[in-house]
């Protein structure tokens, strides 16, 4: 509870400074060496990295409507387990998050669960149908204070509608987060278009279907003077377009997912063959089916370089839980998406930190400060400063573990990392001073009912 | 593991010549005889017997009868690629078929051969000629013509090599207790 005080001893901040942090009444109360506990619960953070609470700009919580996949509660537990303290809940729920009523409901469910700040994303168009603008103003002004608008899962492909959306959303200091996928070029598409897809007999998903939309949208954003956020970049060509747009001064931000920074299409051919004991992927392993698709090795390398040089601003999970039966089937029949909240930081460490592309200060930027800025989430601008909200996570970067079902704390088990060894371990997470993870264990918070009674 | 030769090239030649004579004696001549060897080495032995018999002025049709698809032990062995079956043009109906194999052991191969024969016709009689009979029968089957009886333990392995396939003629025993008794 936020009433409990914690004294975090000897944590190493992203900039390398080692300090104690006193967390009290939801805030960083004191910071410095050798703080006395004054009745606070001591947390030994020697050898651990303290990071600001992670902020995910791209999470599918599935509630309302798809509670068999995930709920706001289970999804925010998964978030906490992964070190996140804020998640942006994508709009493709049922009903769609296209009205003030639905986004307020989702935000309230998040607040009641207490594991993380849940910031609903508003739909750009009614029902994600790509035809009429959703009530963007009402959602922006609602108690959910929506600032990110996205039809994610679908692309706002109509050029005129996209132009209007950019303009209208800018009216409310919001941002359109575009899922860049030209629909006609990706009809029936199953995996990255190339020789491998042709060999596997899976319909190709051309890189140009993503790049063409991004190119159009950055020009539209420039033309109307609005900001644009591009979801889950997956190709080297997309990086080139964003780099060009930024050089031109266009107000565009871009994200990459952890999986697009680590995994390639080659895994779909199977690397475990028929050996049941082998760690790896069977052929056509539907856990690898994701939108946008896994790409080539050269794309992964371009994305890593782009995160390193700031062309890609943030890493966002695109956490997409699905029920087991949606993945236990033939590839073409399987749903797109993989869960990512619990594994995100480990994958970022493996893909970006350990190879030297990012230091921990950069990690704090791409996984906390910048996504909070894009989403206009308050409280992340001065982490660890006395008076700031106590959103933070403690990580043991020296740990290595075989990622398993036990690490998955949401409802979805469609993780491509099961059985894989990953670096890093979340030791503790504090959301507004509440320990959601302590000693590596997800904490049980009072149930929503208890909250209401209290 | 010890390997010792029990038959050498000359022994094998003598054994086959004796079998050829016995076949003619038992059959009272060459009439109606067909030799069918069981691949791989039985088929080679049948060819040799045919040649020896031809030298005795007995022109006997020689063929090969593959039994792979009639075996009852598919699970217990590596997958075998079947070998060609060659039935002489005159067929086997009402003939006396002499099956030829290298080693008679459990009898299961011969059981399979009898079944395989049925798919090709109805012989008047079926005889069996083997180069080596090593015992350990699991079925009520016996050979009519035997090159050499070679009592062996089940732990031993009898290996027949033939010049056409292996470069030299020999029958060897490998493994089991080296009792030195078979000098």
């Amino acid at each position: 509870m936020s009433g409990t005080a914690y004294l975090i001893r000897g944590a190493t901040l992203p900039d390398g400074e080692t300090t104690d942090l006193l967390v009290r009444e939801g805030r960083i109360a004191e910071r410095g060496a050798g703080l006395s506990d004054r009745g606070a619960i001591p947390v030994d953070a020697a050898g651990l990295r303290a990071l600001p609470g992670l902020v995910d700009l791209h999470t599918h919580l599935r509630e309302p409507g798809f509670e068999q996949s995930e709920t706001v509660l289970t999804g925010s537990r998964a978030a906490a387990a992964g070190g996140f303290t804020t998640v942006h809940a994508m709009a493709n729920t049922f009903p769609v998050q296209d009205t003030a009523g639905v986004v307020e409901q989702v935000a309230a469910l998040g607040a009641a669960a207490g594991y993380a700040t849940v910031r609903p994303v508003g739909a750009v168009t009614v029902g994600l149908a790509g035809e009429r603008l959703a009530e963007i103003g009402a959602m922006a002004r609602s108690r959910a204070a929506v600032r990110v608008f996205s039809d994610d899962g679908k692309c706002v492909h109509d050029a005129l509608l996209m132009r209007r959306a950019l303009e209208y959303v800018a009216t409310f200091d919001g941002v359109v987060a575009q899922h860049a996928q030209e629909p006609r070029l990706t009809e029936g598409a199953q995996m990255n278009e190339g020789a491998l897809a042709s060999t596997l007999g899976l319909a190709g998903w051309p890189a140009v279907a993503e790049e063409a939309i991004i190119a159009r949208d950055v020009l539209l954003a420039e033309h109307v003077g609005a900001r644009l956020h591009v979801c889950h970049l997956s190709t080297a060509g997309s990086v080139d377009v964003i780099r060009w747009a930024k050089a031109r001064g266009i107000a565009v931000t871009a994200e990459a997912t952890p999986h697009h920074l680590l995994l390639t299409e080659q895994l779909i051919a199977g690397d475990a063959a028929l050996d049941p004991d082998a760690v790896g992927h069977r052929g056509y392993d539907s856990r690898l089916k994701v939108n946008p698709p896994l790409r080539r090795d050269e794309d992964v390398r371009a994305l890593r370089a782009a995160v390193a040089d700031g062309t890609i601003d943030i890493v966002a999970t695109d956490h997409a839980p699905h029920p087991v039966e949606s993945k236990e089937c033939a590839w073409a029949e399987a749903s797109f998406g993989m869960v990512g909240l619990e594994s995100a930081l480990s994958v970022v460490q493996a893909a970006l930190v350990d190879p030297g592309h990012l230091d921990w200060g950069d990690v704090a930027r791409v996984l906390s400060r910048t996504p909070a800025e894009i989403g206009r989430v308050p409280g992340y601008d001065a982490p660890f400063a006395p008076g700031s909200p106590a959103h933070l996570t403690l990580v043991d970067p020296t740990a290595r573990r075989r990622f398993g079902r036990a690490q998955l704390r949401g409802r979805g088990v469609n993780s491509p990392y099961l059985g894989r060894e990953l670096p890093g371990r979340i030791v503790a997470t504090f959301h507004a001073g509440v320990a959601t993870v302590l000693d590596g264990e997800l904490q049980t918070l009072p149930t929503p009912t208890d909250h209401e009674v209290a | 593991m010890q390997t010792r030769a029990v038959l050498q090239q000359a022994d094998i030649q003598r054994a086959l010549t004796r079998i050829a004579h016995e076949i003619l004696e038992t059959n009272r001549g060459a009439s109606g005889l067909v030799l069918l060897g069981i691949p791989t080495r039985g088929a080679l032995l049948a060819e040799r017997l045919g040649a020896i018999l031809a030298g005795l002025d007995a022109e006997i049709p020689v063929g090969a009868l593959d039994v792979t698809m009639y075996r009852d032990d598919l699970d217990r062995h590596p997958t075998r690629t079947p070998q060609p079956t060659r039935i002489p043009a005159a067929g086997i109906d009402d003939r006396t078929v002499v099956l030829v194999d290298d080693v008679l052991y459990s009898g299961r191969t011969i059981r399979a051969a009898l079944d395989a024969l049925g798919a090709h016709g109805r012989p008047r009689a079926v005889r069996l000629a083997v180069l080596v009979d090593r015992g350990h029968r699991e079925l009520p089957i016996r050979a009519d013509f035997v090159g050499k009886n070679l009592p062996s333990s089940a732990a031993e392995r009898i290996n027949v090599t033939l010049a056409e396939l292996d470069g030299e003629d020999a029958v060897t025993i490998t493994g089991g207790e080296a009792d030195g008794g078979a000098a």
Partner: protein
Amino acid sequence: MTGLRHLLASADLDRASAIALLDTAEDMADVATRRVPKLPTLQGRTVANLFFEDSTRTRLSFEAAAKRLSADVITFSAKGSSVSKGESLKDTAQTIAAMGIDAVVLRHAASGAARVLAESAWIDAAVVNAGDGTHDHPTQGLLDAYTMRKARHGADSRGQGLDGLRVTIVGDVLHSRVARANLGLLPTLGARVHLVAPRTLLPFGAEQWPVTTSSDLDAAIADAPDVLMMLRIQQERMHAAYFPHEREYAGFWGLDEERFARLHADTMVMHPGPMNRGLEISAAAADSERSLVLDQVANGVAIRMAVLYTVLSGGRHAGAREAGAA
């Protein structure tokens, strides 16, 4: 020959295994000519034909193959059973597994379905891919290779590959599992494959395959390949802008009578069937002496017998294999 647990893709076969299968099929083909055209080999084994996609020809061919080997056959086909009502691969597989089956012959509209089934823990049976989406159809590739080998080597086929054989495949390679089945196998056997199609129907990245490609059928014919394989063109393709209309397609990529007349005397014509006569192939070509279309159908049963025999023999465990090494 090593045991083959499943047959999922033609590219999974190495040269020795492929030749062993073709050799085994030689003997299977002979069975049809015997007094008793049936082998007891798979007595007591049950083969389930699981056809999520209707294909009477392939299903009948596998059924005949299984029955000639004395296996019991259970058939689930799309028409008139729950598989047509969207029942999942997993549920159906587990249902038939509960009946105690030794092999599943799977036809499915989704690429990779056979591999997913074989590598799942849902069943323990051998899996034979009878066509998965636009991915592969390995028994088709084998029967095509068998037909080519027979046409080239006749009675001396046993043990032979297809070394030096030049095979030109014409038409909708993009959507063709038959083309992929051939591409996965023929180079392994030493054949050289050339693909001819409009750019819209050549798979993206095909230049990275071990083949040559072009769009000029007349040049390909002038090059006197050993085999000219015409692929079936599906009429709905023209609605998806792969080509304007049938006449234009036939004009550029159809084996019409005029082109057929120009074929080199030794070029054999193949087609996986069913044929659109007058579209990708003229009746004269289809019914000519040089057409191997009927051989392909006839050889299908022998190949499928060889495949069923191979996946169901040889023991399931490494221990059994070693114990059997005689």
